[in-house]
């Protein structure tokens, strides 16, 4: 559905809600479910098995800049000074390359996929679900990483991942990554929590003041908790849940609902709730913690022992683009140390370029966001689209798709 804004979810929030199972035609064209394209390690999300991307080749060399570039991006990724005159990394790019940039911000992954399908855009910042759909549909082509000099400095933890590469072929340039964390009020919540049990089994201690992310994708957080606390259920991937596993996750969330004060879907809501004391514990993002602390709220954050869910975006080039040189130059620009640092700080996520850590205005930025900490991100299950073909590779059962997740989410909220 083009043109639909999901309420209250902007930037990161929108991304989360946008995990949808539309246009999975290519993915449904099953081959045998080989485990090619998956990486080992608990943190990596396994790519949807059994799809073969169309045969496309990457650009072999750059030509002269084409003087124009049409970008589809999340709000805040391609700032040109119109939001804040001091926040601008588009104008320097235009001056340097002569590529006139037109940015279209899209509120959801669905919109991005649809915009890219029109063939009028050159480059897109895709989330984990959109990226696979774009690859499967042939809307984006493989990337020749040799043409992007700054790619060499990208953290290894982001290269050749299941959502930005297929069969050893890179399809995009990583933009950044972040995790969902547990934020709590240091005055009220004592001792400091170390486990998600604080918002699940033990949530009644803060009845009416617990908060959670307002999106069906939060079910994955419950599944992750069950994965660690109830191994008998056999959950291997929080995005691949069969009927029994799904029912268990939903029951957990229905129990949690009794203690929930409100679900949040934008930064301002969560920050104001923590400041006024209406919420004292719940999921959050580093950026929200920073902003709340800057506003004198007494909050702290922790990555619980069970790990967490997270997100990572990728820049991709349209197959039908007429401005591929400008596109490659943009990607090189956006992950250059200085610019990637600017974006990461403006947006509130860990940068992709290892050299960006030296360029941030806040010298402890990378530490706060765990940019170089691979052990941190190994515990993160990046957002992915639940589809009926189980993402953990199981063939004998069907898993719940995102439509089922949404219906369940509405049942949970009651």
């Amino acid at each position, binding site marked *: 559905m083009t043109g639909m804004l999901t309420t*209250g979810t902007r930037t990161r929030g929108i991304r989360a809600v946008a995990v949808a199972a539309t246009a999975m035609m290519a993915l449904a064209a099953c081959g045998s479910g080989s485990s090619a394209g998956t990486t080992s390690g608990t943190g990596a999300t396994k790519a949807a098995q059994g799809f073969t991307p169309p045969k496309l080749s990457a650009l072999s060399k750059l030509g002269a800049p084409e003087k124009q570039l049409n970008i589809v991006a999340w709000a805040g990724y391609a700032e040109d000074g119109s*939001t804040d005159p001091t926040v601008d990394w588009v104008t320097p790019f235009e001056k340097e390359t002569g590529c006139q940039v037109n940015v279209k911000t899209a509120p959801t992954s669905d919109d991005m996929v649809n915009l890219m399908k029109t063939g009028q855009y050159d480059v897109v910042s895709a989330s984990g679900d959109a990226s696979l759909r774009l690859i499967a549909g042939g809307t984006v082509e493989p990337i020749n990483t040799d043409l992007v000099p700054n790619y060499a400095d990208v953290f290894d933890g982001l290269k050749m991942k299941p959502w930005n590469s297929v069969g050893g072929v890179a399809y995009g340039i990583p933009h950044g990554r972040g995790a969902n964390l547990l934020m709590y009020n240091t005055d009220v919540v004592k001792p400091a929590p170390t486990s998600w049990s604080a918002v699940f089994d033990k949530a009644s201690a803060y009845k009416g003041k617990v908060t959670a992310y307002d999106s069906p994708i939060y079910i994955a957080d419950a599944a992750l908790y069950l994965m660690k606390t109830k191994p008998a259920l056999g959950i291997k991937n929080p995005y691949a849940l069969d009927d029994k596993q799904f029912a268990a996750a939903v029951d957990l969330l229905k129990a949690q609902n009794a203690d929930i004060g409100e679900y949040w879907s934008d930064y301002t809501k969560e920050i104001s709730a923590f400041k006024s004391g209406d919420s004292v514990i719940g999921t959050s993002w580093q950026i929200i913690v920073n902003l709340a602390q800057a*506003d004198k709220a007494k909050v702290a954050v922790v990555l619980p022992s069970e790990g967490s869910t997270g997100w990572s975006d990728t820049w991709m080039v349209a197959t039908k683009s007429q401005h591929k040189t400008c596109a490659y130059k943009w990607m090189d620009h956006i992950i250059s140390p200085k610019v990637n640092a600017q974006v990461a700080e403006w947006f509130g996520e860990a940068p992709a370029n290892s050299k960006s850590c030296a360029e941030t205005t806040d010298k402890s930025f990378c530490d706060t966001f765990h940019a170089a900490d691979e052990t941190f991100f190994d515990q993160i299950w990046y957002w992915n689209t639940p589809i009926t073909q189980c993402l953990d590779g199981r063939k004998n059962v069907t898993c719940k798709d995102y439509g089922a997740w949404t219906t369940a989410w509405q049942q949970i909220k009651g």
Partner: protein
Amino acid sequence: MTLSRGARAALAAVMAVGLAFVYVPLLVVLVSSVNTDRTFGWPPRGFTLDWWSRTWHNPGARDALATSVRAGLGATAVALVLGTMAAFAVGRYRFFGRDAVSILIVLPIALPGIVTGLALNSAVTTTLSPLGIGFGMTTVIIGHATFCVVVVYNNVLARLRRTGGSLEEASMDLGAGVFRTFWHVTLPAVRSALLAGALLAFALSFDEIIVTTFTAGPTVQTLPLWIFSNLARPNQAPVVNVVAAVLVIASAVPVWLAQRLSADTAGGRL
């Protein structure tokens, strides 16, 4: 009607309480716009004019305002034409299905915005997108026009009902043609109703968010959409408060003017 002093006082008190109820939140908005706190803290922590100067230099807000004004003018223009035509048809003629026309015109504003928005969105997606026509200013204007028509329609119809057709008949008896009569006799009589309707239609379109969300597509950002996307970003939230404060203060002027110009003291019909 003679009311006792007590009754008058009681009514005045209710009126005052009502106005206070209406304006206190707006004062809170004003206070927030000068609050150093970014995320709506209370009590306000400090005073700053920072946000006001930031807004002044913010092209995003200005662009969104311009877009909203364009959309509003477009929707109002369409509503004026269609609403007046329908009002004349219903007000001056008797025909089968007159009630049905009234209900049909009221329907877009009587049905929840999300229904209208969803319907228009899926209609455009299924019928126009394959032809290459996407969402944009046109779809926004059409979406707004559907519920703005009724506002103009009601005002003009009420006026037509009040003035009756005898003046027009007299004019034509005296030899003026249809067009002449319309221009010199009918139009002046309904002019203030048109103005009141146009102003309300513009106001409805200006602040509309739900239908706009579904019909704007990624390219059009009206002021409500801009506010929507910026309220969630703490760096931007105070700027939004400033914009809102400016809107309230600035809008008092055209509303007052419309009141002075219209002979009808009624605020116009919704």
